């Protein structure tokens, strides 16, 4: 028998779910983060139970797809429940509890954010609360874990609820203003009985909003925030990257020292360490990106960005809420595509899914970092802004603008109605949680290194094989121009030569369709096997700057701005859109766009 966590959006269900189960599900400070049910085991002594985290639900009167998941669970599964109520927003949270009581549920009440509420002076008469509702009440904090163990013990005592048969016109009843008003009256009545000391008014949010949501200052602040993020990506991560680079070099030397067989040494040092090492070096930058996204989400800033950009977004045909998945796409397109479930209109979801792959995901970061370093000198602009960081910011802003333009075109081309509602709750500002940042660091490091250890390693070995074979008559590695890789690179030359790419770039481009960052490891392997004499003293970016023209490097950057995402993105698009149509459209238009834009860039720059 599984137990479900239910409650309104952004009341701390997932944070509590993580605290109860030890899971690492994504938590953020805006409504609608959990868009599908997730489950994990929860243990108490020798007993184990399954806990299910359901998407947030305002009411049984549902408005969106994710709410339908929860409503259907409540009506069909009828499992024991824990209802999570935000102690700092009781007036809001109690509504769904009222409806659950009407249905016959007697859930455990987890009074979340109790630490925050207590700091603001809230004192609740828990006994009175319990007697009014007929439910056990457990104050909990997912941050300091207070009350979590007591709640867990109570969960293990829960029994199967006896659900009331609903009146035939229940769904009609709950839609009437009379019903809502009566519930509000009841909530206000309960609150007057259970609150001993009310919350002190929270003034910080209003003060901050007067600047952050300001029609002019808000945009300056947004630009400054983005600039700080990209400055940090380049400046703060550099010492860590140097350290990893030195470590990778040392590892190569150690292995080169004790592997005597030349072919095996080349496989390990050039193929495996050279290929994987050239990617692992970008770990600090990727972690900084994820940390910043986590901090901005936790602060409640992403919802403010949605508010700020809503007017502009609507002119381009998408609701402001679409900015949340679009921004999430800068970390990874997969959760971002899933996050489109917060959009109510199916057609807007499809458009958002189609344009999310244009946003600069973290897998593009190593590629752009490499190419920007090859193109732009590492100097300061205006005395404090890193020139490379500025170009990098442009590489995030430009695809974002492009994705909005494509969305606007799709709106014009396809017979769609006006953009759907904004109508969203604005979360309060909250301090970023160190535990969430720590979990982000651990999770992303694991994901990145496991990807490097599997996909990147596999592609690196394949590329090494392609550049190291066929062997010569003396059983030596071929001249790289005579390798299998060169044959493949030349075979696709008619497609890519108009973009300024040679066979080496072509060879690295092909596996990059599987995972973008493979371009870097593939080039790393090609140059390592080629045994470029400068490889010892020059970084990959310097070699690229030496071997390729500005036109080619710009064309390559543009290719990666528009080219299709990794295989996983295709798979998640198929799952979320319910067929192959949307992924095939995405693949076709991004390929066409990438080719045309790269061709134009190369031709124009070469001409100039």
């Amino acid at each position, binding site marked *: 028998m599984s137990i479900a966590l239910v409650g309104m959006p952004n009341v701390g269900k997932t944070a509590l779910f993580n605290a109860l189960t030890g899971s690492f599900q994504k938590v953020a400070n805006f409504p609608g983060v959990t868009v599908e049910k997730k489950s994990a085991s929860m243990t108490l002594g020798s007993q184990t139970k399954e806990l299910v985290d359901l998407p947030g639900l305002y009411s049984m*009167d549902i408005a*969106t797809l994710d709410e339908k998941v929860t409503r259907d669970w409540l009506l069909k599964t009828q499992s024991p429940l824990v209802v999570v109520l935000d102690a700092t927003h009781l007036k809001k949270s109690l509504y769904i509890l009222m409806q659950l009581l009407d249905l016959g549920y007697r859930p455990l009440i987890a009074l979340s954010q109790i630490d925050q509420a207590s700091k603001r002076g809230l004192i609740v008469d828990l006994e009175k609360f319990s007697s009014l509702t007929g439910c056990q009440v457990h104050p909990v904090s997912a941050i300091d874990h207070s009350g979590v163990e007591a709640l867990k013990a109570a969960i293990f005592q829960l029994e199967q609820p006896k659900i009331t048969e609903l009146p035939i016109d229940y769904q009609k009843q709950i839609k009437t203003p009379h019903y809502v008003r009566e519930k509000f009256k009841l909530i206000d009545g309960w609150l007057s009985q259970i609150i001993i000391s009310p919350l002190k008014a929270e003034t910080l949010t209003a003060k901050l909003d007067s600047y952050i949501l300001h029609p002019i200052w808000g945009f300056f602040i947004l630009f400054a925030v983005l600039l700080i993020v990209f400055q940090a990506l380049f400046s703060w991560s550099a010492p860590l990257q140097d350290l990893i680079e030195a470590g990778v070099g040392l590892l190569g030397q150690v292995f080169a020292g004790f592997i005597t067989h030349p072919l095996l040494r080349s496989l390990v040092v050039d193929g495996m360490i050279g290929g994987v090492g050239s990617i692992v070096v970008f770990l600090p930058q990727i972690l900084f990106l994820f940390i910043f996204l986590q901090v901005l989400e936790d602060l409640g800033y992403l919802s403010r960005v949605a508010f700020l950009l809503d007017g502009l977004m609507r002119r381009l045909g998408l609701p402001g809420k679409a900015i949340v998945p679009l921004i999430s796409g800068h970390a990874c397109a997969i959760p971002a595509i899933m996050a489109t479930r917060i959009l109510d209109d199916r057609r807007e979801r499809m458009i958002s899914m189609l344009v999310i792959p244009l946003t600069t995901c973290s897998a593009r970061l190593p590629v752009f970092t490499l190419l920007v370093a090859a193109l732009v000198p590492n100097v300061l602009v205006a005395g404090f802004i890193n020139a490379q960081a500025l170009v990098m910011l442009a590489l995030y802003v430009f695809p974002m603008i492009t994705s909005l333009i494509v969305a606007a075109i799709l709106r014009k081309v396809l017979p769609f109605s006006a953009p759907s509602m904004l109508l969203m709750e604005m979360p309060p500002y909250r301090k970023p949680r160190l535990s969430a940042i720590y979990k982000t660091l651990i999770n992303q490091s694991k994901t990145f290194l496991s990807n490097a250890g599997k996909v990147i390693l596999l592609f690196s070995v394949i590329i090494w094989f392609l550049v190291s074979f066929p062997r010569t008559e003396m059983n030596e590695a071929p001249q790289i121009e005579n390798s299998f890789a060169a044959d493949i690179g030349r075979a696709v030359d008619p497609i890519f030569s108009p973009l300024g790419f040679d066979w080496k770039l072509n060879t690295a481009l092909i596996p990059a369709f599987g995972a973008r960052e493979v371009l870097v490891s593939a080039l790393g392997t090609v140059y390592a096997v080629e045994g470029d004499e400068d490889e010892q003293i020059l970084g990959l970016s310097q070699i690229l700057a030496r071997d390729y023209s500005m036109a080619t490097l710009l064309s390559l950057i543009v290719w990666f701005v528009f080219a299709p995402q990794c295989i996983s993105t295709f798979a998640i698009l198929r799952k979320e859109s319910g067929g192959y149509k949307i992924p095939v459209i995405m693949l076709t238009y991004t390929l066409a766009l990438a080719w045309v834009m790269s061709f134009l860039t190369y031709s124009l720059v070469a001409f100039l």
Partner: protein
Amino acid sequence: MGLHEAKAHQTYKINRILTVEDNAISIRMRQLGFIEGETVVCRAVSHLNFGPLLFILRDVSVALTRQEAALIEVEAL
């Protein structure tokens, strides 16, 4: 007047909701407490003519587009 004409820091009482069909907008309005008789405070107004507005309703901050706010008939208090 429609709520889309709201001025920042002004309080309004909701007189009528003008949505006809039971769509996602009208459902979300009900869920968040936009019903006749409730009071709302305008906290922020975005761009001059086309940006959204931010209101406080039953202790919760809610953002609405002008088109959505125009569906709510209010009187200033």
